[in-house]
Each structure stands twice: as structure tokens, then as C-alpha cells.
């Protein structure tokens, strides 16, 4: 294995501005076996052009870069990446081993000091972390014992199991438990005297050193180009304006078998533009890799532009539990309604009264998968018999269920009434970020009308909606179903149980659990209590089989109780890929976590066949 110099940096190296690649790389680089993955070896060069819709999406370099201490591979298994290895003992003790000679993008060595700095000077500094260390570092409220035996080794040891630790490190948004201490110490009051900090505070127009530190330490959004990174691409432009450039990191730790340092592409060329314009831009060939801002409705335009734009449109299935799902709020404030919503028959009836085929056909050209919320076939937890339960279109049965509940239709009226005489108006609230949702609701309204249920739609801003749900003011919300549609037994089943305020079925129960009973309401429904119990048990389960069993049970409960009413899943997400760009999977799962969208498909391995040609 002989490393080869990157053409982009050849000049710098010849003039001595940068050490040659052999001295830049870690002593133990990560050599990727592309052939084993069925990918081809590429050549370095070229910039990948793409668009984002908002400035804050500049995090995209961290998503596409997807360099994590440990990361998921394409099969969604966790493997070391920045780390040379990680040793786990009983899921309580984690020993992280760094790569010797690994360097930050500015050439400074990456050592255990960087992790210590994070733990001692950031996570446990009351100024920088007013509410203490992050929650994933606490088990039953207790922090770990942390040791730094040498420059390459870090050991975390908890009293009890912490199964979430590694998945969190591999998340789309990683916690960055390592920070460039050599850079950040300059802004930390513990290491830098006040006199030296004062001018910096003034220059950055912030109020104190902590604010300064916070502003300059931005590993995720990479807003500060001066801050070194370990990602394959580092920010070069100041990050102002609408054009962001991320250039290859000369000290990156991954290489291909030929000794070519990854990433292949010299950089990411990111333009901020409004969502409505992205299809127009893409259709004229202005993007090499684009998925953000594209939706299925635009596919005809994208396809018609393929010839002129020199790209191909691929449709990746979405990896969410459901693309659109209705969340009956089991904690709705109105007691009469709450009883109805908690009634299993009601939820089943509503689900049965949705004609998912028409929705699929009208909105997704029939390409999505009709069915309730559940795991997707890609997951090992998938069971076909769970799939269609209570999700077929059967208005008769639905009507019968409602009749059985005593929700009668007064003579000559179109809609039923509640037992207390109020009209059966189901108010569904949506954040209206996708036009499909409104259409789907309209279609649902029609079929629900047939069973005597009136659907009223109300739109609110995403944040407003969320706050209203938490407060129990929303009867039913529309959102996407389960963020992770492809869980494995190791995935935390929190989402399926009333363990967090954030899940729209039971915000108050979730809050109760989260705050250990300080706020919210205790679980009153047996099914929910059972789920809670199972999720707790998952945490202490010793083996994979045990966890799998728990998962199965939870999934069964969900499928049977229709706690969330899913409409369709695996909605096609258009992904536009330039014909010049290689190693991009033909079809893959489009998922935030685990996945980081493109991240786990390793965009640092994507390459241009003709890197010298200007795009």
C-alpha cells in the first residue's frame, strides 16, 4: 500500500506548503475495500454541485461526509471509522482506540486529549453546558467514569448498560464527543487569560467567553471554517451568503486500495436556493447529486430534463415507518373525545375507512406501499403478516365498528355524533409542509364521510403544531410515521413506547416518563403501559434474541392497536445523479437516521469519470 498524492494538493506539496500525503495520513489509515462492496475504484477530482434550501442545512457536509467515530455501513451495522477499534464489555464499558498519527484538517494531531477536552471542559463546564452532560452520557442519571490511559485510548465505564452509546455516536447528527482542543482552548477561559479573550469577544460581537466558544465551535454546521474537522470535506468559504464550498480534507483517514486518498471528489459546491427553484435548476443540469428539495410530484419535470441536463433520476424508497401517518392523540384534553380516541375500535374504524390505493395512485403514481405504520421489508424485524392488518379499505366493517361503539348517525344526518351529542368532527392538524399531505387529507375526508366521520383540517406552523400537541390541544396530527422504518433489535424502541413527549400519540405520558413523573400524566391505558414495560425491558436485555423478541411483541401490539394510522410507506424519493458521477447506489433507502441520507452510502467514494471537465 503506497499512498498517492492528490492532484489538488500536488502544488502545495511541491512548494512545501503542505507535507506529502505519506506524512499526512494516519499511521493506520482506513483502507476501503471498494471491490468488496461492488464499487469501482475511482480517480480524484471534481466538485459535486448540489443545492440546499436553507442556510442551516449547511450541516450537509457532515451528513455527506459521514465520518463518525463509529458509523453504520450499508447494511446498517455499526463499524469503527475514525476509531481504529472499539471494545465493548457488557455494553457498560467502552474502550475507544484512536488511529495513531491521525490528524485534524489543519494538521494538528487528533488524540485522546480532544475527547478529554470535550468531556471535562465542555460537557462538564457549567458555563458551556448549563444543564450538565448530555443525556446519552447518563445512565439512570449517572455519568460514566472516564479514563484516558494514553494518547490513543479513551475508556468510558458506566454502572449499568448503555446500549444507546454507540448508535448515538453513529447518528446522522453525531454528538461530537471529540473537539479540536488545540483550537478551542484559545477561547476557553480555563486555558486563556481574560485579557487575551476580551478583544476576541469584542471582535465577534458576543457577550462573554462562553458565547464566543459556542459561536466558534460548530462542528455540525461547519459555519466556522477556522475550526478543524475530521470530515472528508472541510468548509472553506466563510459560510456567508448563499454559496458554500467544502474542500477535501488533506488529512483524511480513508484511502482506497490504490492508495488514493478519499474523498474522490475535491469538494462540495453547495448553493442555497429556495425549494421551488431546485427542480428548475436541476432540470437544466446544475446539480450533480440532488435529493433535497425534490419531491415525487416533480419527477416528470426531472425526467424530461434528463437528456439536456446529463443526469439520471433515481427513485429511492423512503425509509420512514410511513410517509404520511395520522396520530390520534391519546392525551387529548377533552375527556369525551379522549375516551373515543383511546377506543381501539375507533382507531381501527378510521384506519379501515381509508382507501390507501387511491391515495397511492393519486399521489405516488402507485409506487409507494400501502399499509399502516410498521417496519419495512429491509429490516430483519419485518413480518408480512403484520403488514396489512387493519389497513385494507373496508368501510362496512368500519361503520360496524363505529355503530358498535354507539357513535350513531342521527336520522337524516350525514355525520355521526358523539354519545354526548356533539358532532363527530375529527380535527386533524398539519404543518402543511408537503402538498401531498393536504391532498391525502382531502381524499381521506371523502372516505371518512362515507362512514359518517367529518374530517376538519387545520394548519399550523410546525413548531406551533408541536407545542399544541404537547399541550394536548390537538385531537389528531399528521406527521410522518416512525422516523426509523428499518429498526434492528439493537435499535432503541423508544419511539414505539410512551417514553417521550415528542411522540404525537401520547405526549403527556411521554413527558411523565421523561421527567420521572415531575410533569405530564401517568400512563392510564393498558396497551401503552405494556409498551412502556417492554421498552424498559429492552434496555436491560442481555442478548440479541431477547431484544428481538421484545421488538416483535411491541410491533404486534402496534399493528393490532393501530396506535398510529399510517397511509403509505416507501414513498419514492427522487434522487438526481449526474451521469458523470459513479458509485452512487442505484436504489437505496432514503433515511435520516440511521443513514444520514446519503451518508451511509459513503459519498466520499463517489467519483467523476471525467474529473477535469468543468461541470
Amino acid at each position: 500500500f503506497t499512498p498517492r498524492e492528490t492532484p489538488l494538493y500536488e502544488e502545495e506539496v511541491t512548494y512545501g506548503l503542505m507535507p506529502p500525503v505519506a506524512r499526512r495520513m494516519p499511521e493506520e489509515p482506513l483502507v476501503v475495500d471498494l471491490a468488496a462492496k461492488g464499487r469501482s475504484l475511482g480517480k480524484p477530482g471534481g466538485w459535486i454541485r448540489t443545492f440546499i434550501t436553507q442556510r442551516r442545512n449547511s450541516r450537509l457536509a457532515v451528513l455527506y461526509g459521514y465520518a463518525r467515530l463509529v458509523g453504520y455501513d450499508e447494511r446498517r451495522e455499526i463499524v469503527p471509522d475514525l476509531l481504529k477499534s472499539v471494545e465493548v464489555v457488557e455494553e457498560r464499558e467502552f474502550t475507544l482506540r484512536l488511529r495513531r498519527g491521525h490528524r485534524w484538517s489543519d494538521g494538528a494531531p487528533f488524540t485522546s486529549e480532544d475527547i478529554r477536552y470535550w468531556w471535562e471542559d465542555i460537557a462538564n463546564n457549567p458555563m458551556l453546558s448549563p444543564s450538565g452532560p448530555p443525556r446519552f452520557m447518563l445512565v439512570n442519571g449517572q455519568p460514566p467514569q472516564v479514563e484516558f490511559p494514553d494518547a490513543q485510548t479513551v475508556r468510558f465505564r458506566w454502572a449499568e448498560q448503555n446500549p444507546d452509546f454507540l448508535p448515538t455516536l453513529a447518528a446522522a447528527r453525531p454528538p461530537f464527543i471529540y473537539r479540536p482542543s488545540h483550537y478551542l482552548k484559545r477561547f476557553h477561559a480555563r486555558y486563556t487569560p481574560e485579557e487575551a479573550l476580551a478583544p476576541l469577544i469584542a471582535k465577534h460581537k458576543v457577550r462573554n467567553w462562553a458565547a464566543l466558544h459556542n459561536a466558534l465551535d460548530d462542528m455540525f454546521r461547519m459555519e466556522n471554517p477556522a475550526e478543524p474537522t475530521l470530515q472528508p470535506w472541510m468548509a472553506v468559504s466563510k459560510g456567508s451568503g448563499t454559496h458554500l464550498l467544502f474542500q477535501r480534507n488533506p488529512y483524511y483517514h480513508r484511502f482506497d486500495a490504490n492508495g488514493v486518498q478519499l474523498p474522490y471528489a475535491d469538494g462540495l459546491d453547495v448553493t442555497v436556493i429556495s425549494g421551488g427553484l431546485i427542480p428548475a435548476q436541476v432540470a437544466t443540469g446544475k446539480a450533480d447529486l440532488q435529493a433535497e428539495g425534490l419531491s415525487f410530484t416533480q419527477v416528470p419535470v426531472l425526467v424530461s430534463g434528463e437528456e439536456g441536463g446529463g443526469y439520471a433520476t433515481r427513485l429511492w424508497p423512503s425509509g420512514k415507518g410511513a410517509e404520511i401517518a395520522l396520530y390520534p392523540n391519546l392525551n387529548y384534553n377533552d375527556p369525551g373525545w379522549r375516551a373515543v380516541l383511546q377506543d381501539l375500535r375507533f382507531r381501527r374504524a378510521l384506519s379501515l375507512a381509508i382507501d390507501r390505493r387511491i391515495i397511492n395512485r393519486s399521489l405516488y403514481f402507485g409506487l409507494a406501499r400501502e399499509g399502516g405504520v410498521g417496519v419495512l421489508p429491509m429490516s430483519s424485524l419485518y413480518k408480512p403478516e403484520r403488514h396489512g392488518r387493519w389497513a385494507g379499505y373496508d368501510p362496512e366493517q368500519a361503520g360496524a365498528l363505529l355503530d358498535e361503539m354507539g357513535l350513531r348517525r342521527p336520522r337524516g344526518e350525514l355525520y355521526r355524533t358523539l354519545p354526548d351529542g356533539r358532532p363527530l368532527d375529527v380535527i386533524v392538524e398539519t404543518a402543511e409542509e408537503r402538498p401531498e399531505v393536504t391532498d391525502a387529507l382531502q381524499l381521506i375526508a371523502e372516505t371518512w364521510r362515507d362512514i359518517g366521520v367529518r374530517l376538519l383540517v387545520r394548519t399550523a406552523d410546525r413548531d406551533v403544531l408541536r407545542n399544541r400537541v404537547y399541550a394536548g390541544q390537538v385531537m389528531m396530527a399528521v406527521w410522518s410515521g416512525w422516523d426509523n422504518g428499518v429498526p434492528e433489535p439493537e435499535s432503541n424502541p423508544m419511539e414505539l413506547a410512551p417514553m417521550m413527549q415528542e411522540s404525537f400519540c401520547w405526549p403527556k405520558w411521554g413527558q411523565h416518563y421523561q421527567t420521572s413523573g415531575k410533569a405530564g400524566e401517568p400512563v392510564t391505558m393498558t396497551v401503552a403501559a405494556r409498551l412502556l414495560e417492554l421498552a424498559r425491558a429492552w434496555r436491560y436485555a442481555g442478548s440479541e434474541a431477547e431484544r428481538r423478541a421484545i421488538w416483535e411483541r411491541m410491533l404486534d401490539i402496534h399493528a393490532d392497536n393501530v396506535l398510529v394510522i399510517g397511509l403509505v410507506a416507501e414513498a419514492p424519493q427522487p434522487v438526481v445523479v449526474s451521469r458523470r458521477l459513479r458509485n452512487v447506489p442505484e436504489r437505496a433507502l432514503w433515511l435520516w437516521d440511521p443513514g444520514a441520507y446519503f451518508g451511509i452510502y459513503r459519498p466520499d467514494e463517489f467519483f467523476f469519470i471525467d474529473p477535469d471537465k468543468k461541470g
Partner: protein
Amino acid sequence: MLRYILRRLCIMVPTLIVVSMLIFVVINLPPGDYLSNQIAELRATGQESGLAKAEFLRHEYALDRPIHEQYLIWIGVWPGPSGFNGLLQGDLGWSFEFGKPVAEVVGETLWFTVILNFAAVLFVYLVSFPLGALAAIRANSWVDYLAAAVGYVGLATPNFLLALILLYYGQKWLGLPIGGLMDPRYENQPMSWDKILSVLHHLIVPTIVIGLHGTAAMVRRLRANLLDELGKPYVVTAQAKGVPPVRRLVKYPLRMALNPFVSDIGSLLPSLVSGSVLISVVLSLPTIGPALLEALRSQDQFLAGFILLFISILVLVGMLVSDILLALLDPRIRLSRRPRG
């Protein structure tokens, strides 16, 4: 006159206080605040790792205090967590959304905003004055009808749609650029001829889209007002003096017809900043408009508050300017001899 201006300036102070309070209240009307929303969002999407920063900021910017205290801290008459840091002290606050001081966010976009809207205003005036005058002189002729039809096509097409159509076909057939105010490669570059050209190139579509509405409105109003004046005897006098037609029109009836437009300057200035919000959003122009909308949506309160306050100040200044101009324009208003009311 000077005394009048000074007096008006004094009146502006209480007005401004009232407005600033209203703004603050309105911004805080939706439940929650940026950071608590962000915290919720991070939790909901399982991004626990982002929380520390948000919590830090929440305390640092006193979002955990009651609203009246927040207002006073914002204004700068109440000590915040790190002393008096408010508008009065020149600290515009922090934009959570952009992750930098408000002053920086606004400073960047303000330039583009001014350029863009200046172009639009210029377009409006350059096109609508001749066209309006022509439509008035040749009232009910084909020129008039054509001007009306074109104007109303602009008015009757939703802005976004118009923008989209112009953009798409402009790009397809004329190679006009889409979105942004300049070619990305000139960003953060020193000013150069190419950069200016690029900006101009990018300005074409937005200017038309933003300007068309105003132009159409102006043409119609100008035509109506001019038609009223054209029959007046003093115009005949000018004719008898041998004043050439164009000059005659501009000097006499046009000046008279200007009155309602001058009174509207008050809204011209702020529209320089905010008028094009939605269009800028659609065309993804880096103006202050999208920043405002985004800030409002996400309750980025210091940013939104400052922009809104800024716009209000512009409104007030614009009204003042318009009153002064009105008096300058019409001596009868300036030297009114009749006491009343």
C-alpha cells in the same frame, strides 16, 4: 419647515416605543420561542447532541425570563444575564437561526435588498411614468388598452407563478440565471466588472417580477390623475406659451398628478426592504425578506424584532419625507392660509 421637521421627529419617539412594544408582543404571540422549539425539534428527531448549545443560548439570551423583562432587556433598559446589552447599547442581539449576531446577518442582506429594490423602483418609475403619461394623452386608444392589458396580465398572475414562468423560460430560452443575486463564484470576491455584470444579469427577472405589479398600478393611477388635470385651463396657458408637449406635460399636470404618489412614499421606503418578501423567498434572493420570514417562522426573535423595528423606522421616516415632499410640491399645502378644525 425646520421646526416642523423637528417637531415631527419628537413625535416619532413615542410612536416608536408603541410600535416596538407591539412588535415584540406580536413576535412572541405564537407559543414557545426559537430555542425551546429547537430543543423540542432536536429531541423529536433524536438529535440529543445539539441540545447543550440551545440550552446555553436560552439562558444567555434570557429567553427563560418573563416577556416584559425580555422586552426591556432587548431594548436595553434592564440588565440581562451579562449586563445591559440592548438596542440602546447598540447590541442588536443574536440570530439563532443564522448563528451569528443580528448585525452581521442584516448587514449582509441589506445591501442586496437595497440593490434589488432600488432596481425595482427604478424600473417602476422608468416604465410607468412614460407609459402612464402616454396612456393618459392617448386615452382610450390602442396604446392605452395595450398598456392596461399588459399591466393587468402582470397584476392578474400570482407573483410566484409569474416568477416561476419567467424564470423557467428565461433560463430555457434566454439563458437567464435562476435564483440568487449573482453567480455563486463571485461571492466573497472583490467587486469587479464581471461581478457587476453578473449581478445585473441576475437582476433582470426579479426586477420585472417585483416591479411589474407596481408598474401596472402606477400606470393606471397616473393615467387617471393625469386625465383629470389635462383639461385644466392652466395646461392651456402653457400650451399658449408654446411649451413643447412633453415638457408641458411633465411640468404642469404631471406635477399636479404626483400628489397622491408622493403621499405614498411613506410606504415606498419600507417596501424597499420588506415589500418583496414573498417574491424573494420564491426566487431565493438573499434579501432581508426571506430572512424576515424565516426568522418569524422560527421565532428567531431578535432578528425578526430588529428587522421589523427597522422597517417601522423606515415607515416613519418615509412618512415624514412624504409629508415634507408634499409640502414642497404644493405651495398651497405649504402656505395654507386657512385655519380649521
